[in-house]
């Protein structure tokens, strides 16, 4: 996987985790889970954001603001953000070294 994409996916997962703790933290704490490390996780998020190319980070933020999630998985040759068909050529080896975007909605594509 493209290293920048790996970082974006990790960042998006981390943002989801922070949001979940903020929204459902008390439910998790009732089950016995500790969430004391939330500030550390937020710091780790900022650190990871700093490692990502600023231009890509800017796009990631814009897409997150617009759609909620900037990176979406491709399932069954479709972008799961807008359900547009993704051309088979997108998964060729020549494209493995760069970020790829849905031609319809612009979201960043991820092949799980």
């Amino acid at each position, binding site marked *: *996987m493209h290293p920048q994409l*790996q970082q974006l*996916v*990790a960042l*998006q*997962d*981390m943002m*989801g*985790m922070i949001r*979940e*703790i903020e929204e*459902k933290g008390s*439910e*998790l704490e009732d*089950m*016995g*889970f*500790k*969430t*004391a*490390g*939330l500030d*550390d*996780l937020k710091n*780790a998020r900022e650190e990871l954001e700093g490692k990502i190319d600023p231009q890509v980070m800017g796009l990631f933020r814009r897409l997150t603001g617009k759609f909620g*999630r900037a*990176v*979406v*998985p491709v*399932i069954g040759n479709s972008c799961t953000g807008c359900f547009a068909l993704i051309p088979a050529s997108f998964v060729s080896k020549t494209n493995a070294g760069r970020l790829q975007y849905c031609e319809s909605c612009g979201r960043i594509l*991820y*092949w*799980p």
Partner: protein
Amino acid sequence: MDIADVLKHTSSELFLPDLQATDKESAIQELVSGLSSGMNIQNPDTILQMLQSRESLGSTAVGPGIAFPHGRTLAVQQLSILMARSTKGVDFDSEDGGPTHLFFVLIAPPQDMGHQYIKSLATLIDSVQDTDLRDKLMAADNYEAFCAALKGE
């Protein structure tokens, strides 16, 4: 949600009867490796990073000798549960300081809107509070016996 519903999200391919790791970092890697081969995951590092982030919030070893590593990631399309056992025990930073012998790893996609995995997590935690059950799980010969014990059969 009852335990039979929860067990629909696992399979014999997602059962590790004897973990070899004895420290937390290696155990997480072994669990992710089990998920990766059991589910044919293309990008296991994504799951590894997510579980490591989750542990940085606080250890998920919240039961007596039991851990419930969990979280959401783009790497999976449906809730999946890996069950694992360690006879040696793993130092998983448990609350009571004791070794962790049983692991229930819950991985859900971000779009699990009904918080199905949190409900599954709650059901699992409730189900394994009984000491006798934990003994049965440690003694179970195989995946089928492990599931039967969880279901109280």
